[in-house]
């Protein structure tokens, strides 16, 4: 990370990991909460928030451990092999990968996806700081295309097993994410699509709903986002323009597409707080290695991500969530955006010089 500036990359990485903590801790609590909701109203009443959190922690720890062991294992091996220093590049990716998968994703799939992402998205490009696409998102994309059944559908978003006596053993509980419910049925039917489950705007903001582990809580993500903005690690230009792009695209679709497309008529603010939009905007789009580096380019890059995410959500019924693919696509385009911005600048200055003479 950050081969292009002088700030110590270790400090930046630690800051990003700290910024991820609210979302991670809330995600753990939410795992417990969703498990209790699935078990029925009585379980929600009788389970304290701390035991919900503890349950989530126990479910989450193996995923984090697997991601770090596999990722760092490969990094160390490659570093030994190439006789290079070991970078701390996997610190952030290692915590991101378990946060952007559903709780029902098996450990061995996380291990394979992490290995694939580290080797094919990072090491073959030259290692830390040289990757052109976001490593954690490649891991997610790998799972998405290779094992679609563990990352979409209705049965993977809620943990249904008890761990060390905590949590409840539940049979045959299914509950899709808000986005896939929206894309499947219609705006009104989010409410009550799962047994004992009703989604309010407060739920969407606080994050007490099924979804990938770290993505659900807008408030927790905002806390981390503020830290990144105040310390200057993440670019506000990218973050703001992602949201602007998302709003513009959803307003455009709302006005132009016929009634039959449910996704198009989700209110624009709901588009922004559902699914991985916030998480992607704050933690993924702003990754300084893979984003555009020119100042004007950052606006274009961010806008492209927001607009593309909504475009995929609305126009492709197969992919109720578009954030992952939007960020990956713009990662690939980012160097081209930078090139165009730089060339325009070069031309403008050349013109100025020739005018003067």
């Amino acid at each position, binding site marked *: 990370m950050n081969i292009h500036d002088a700030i110590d990359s270790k400090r930046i990485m630690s800051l990003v990991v700290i910024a991820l903590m609210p979302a991670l801790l809330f995600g753990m609590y939410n795992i417990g909460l969703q498990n209790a909701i699935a078990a029925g109203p009585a379980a929600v009443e009788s389970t304290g928030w701390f035991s919900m959190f503890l349950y989530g922690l126990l479910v989450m720890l193996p995923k984090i451990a697997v991601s770090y062991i596999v990722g760092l294992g490969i990094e160390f091996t490659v570093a030994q092999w190439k006789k290079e220093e070991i970078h701390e590049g996997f610190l952030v990716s290692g915590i991101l990968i378990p946060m952007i998968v559903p709780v029902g994703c*098996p450990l*061995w*799939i996380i291990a394979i996806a992490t290995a694939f992402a580290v080797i*094919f998205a990072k090491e073959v490009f030259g290692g830390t700081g040289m990757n052109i696409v976001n490593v954690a998102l490649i891991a997610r994309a*790998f799972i998405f*295309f*290779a*094992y*679609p*059944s*563990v990352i979409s559908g209705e049965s993977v978003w809620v943990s249904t097993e008890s761990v060390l006596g905590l949590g409840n053993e539940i049979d045959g509980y299914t509950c899709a994410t808000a986005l896939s419910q929206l894309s499947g049925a219609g705006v009104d039917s989010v409410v009550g699509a799962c047994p004992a489950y009703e989604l309010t705007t407060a739920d969407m903001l606080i994050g007490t709903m099924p979804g990938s582990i770290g993505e659900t809580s807008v408030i927790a993500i905002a806390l981390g986002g503020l830290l990144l903005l105040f310390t200057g690690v993440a670019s506000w230009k990218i973050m703001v323009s992602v949201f602007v792009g998302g709003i513009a695209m959803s307003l455009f679709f709302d006005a132009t597409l016929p009634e039959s497309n449910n996704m198009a008529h989700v209110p624009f603010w709901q588009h922004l707080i559902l699914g991985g939009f916030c998480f992607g905007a704050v933690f993924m789009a702003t990754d300084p290695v893979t984003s555009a580096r020119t100042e004007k380019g950052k606006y274009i890059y961010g806008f492209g991500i927001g607009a593309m995410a909504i475009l995929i959500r609305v126009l492709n019924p197969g992919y109720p969530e578009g954030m992952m693919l939007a960020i990956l696509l713009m990662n690939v385009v980012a160097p081209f955006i930078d090139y165009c911005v730089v060339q325009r600048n070069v031309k403008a200055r050349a013109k100025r010089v020739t005018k003067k003479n």
Partner: protein
Amino acid sequence: MGLFSKKNTEAFKTPLLKENPVTVQVLGICSALAVTNKLEPAIVMGLSVTVIIAMANVIISLIRNTIPNRIRIIVQLVVVAALVTLVSEILKAFVYDVSVQLSVYIGLIITNCILMGRLEAFAMQNKPWPSFLDGIGSGLGYAMILIVVAIFRELLGSGTLLGMQVVPDFLYAAGYKNNGLMLMAPAAFFIIACIIWFQRSKDKNLQEK
């Protein structure tokens, strides 16, 4: 000159590994992506291409001195097209299911760069017998890569080989899942890339400084 003189065996062996059409010359990638998600069509495709290259090489080599230079590409195309049509009809007659799976890709052998490459680069300058060996070598070099890629893709993507289940049921029961990515074209890219990577790390001559 003996039938299996050093020069002739070289003509056969070089395109197998050192000048492999897929991994070294990076030709014929299109069909290597398209027909390799199952092993059976990959084998049939590899053999068809081998037969067509070998025969086309021999025919072009026989008439190489009478082909007017300015229309040689057209002449080569006519020969290849005739052979492709022949093979396509034979496949339809004897292995109909596979020919359905291969669909347009048999017909598209005519546009396979490996063929035109060998005709231009080898058959136009060499006698029939070395041309035949060169064609067989190139075809088998191509078929070999296709088969390796197809083995990985069918085994990991469908859990079968030649349609027979290889991954045991108890693994599925334990939570193992087939890798859907392997059935998509990008998987062939990754596997071919890995083969190229492996080959280049072994062969010093291929390493770029």
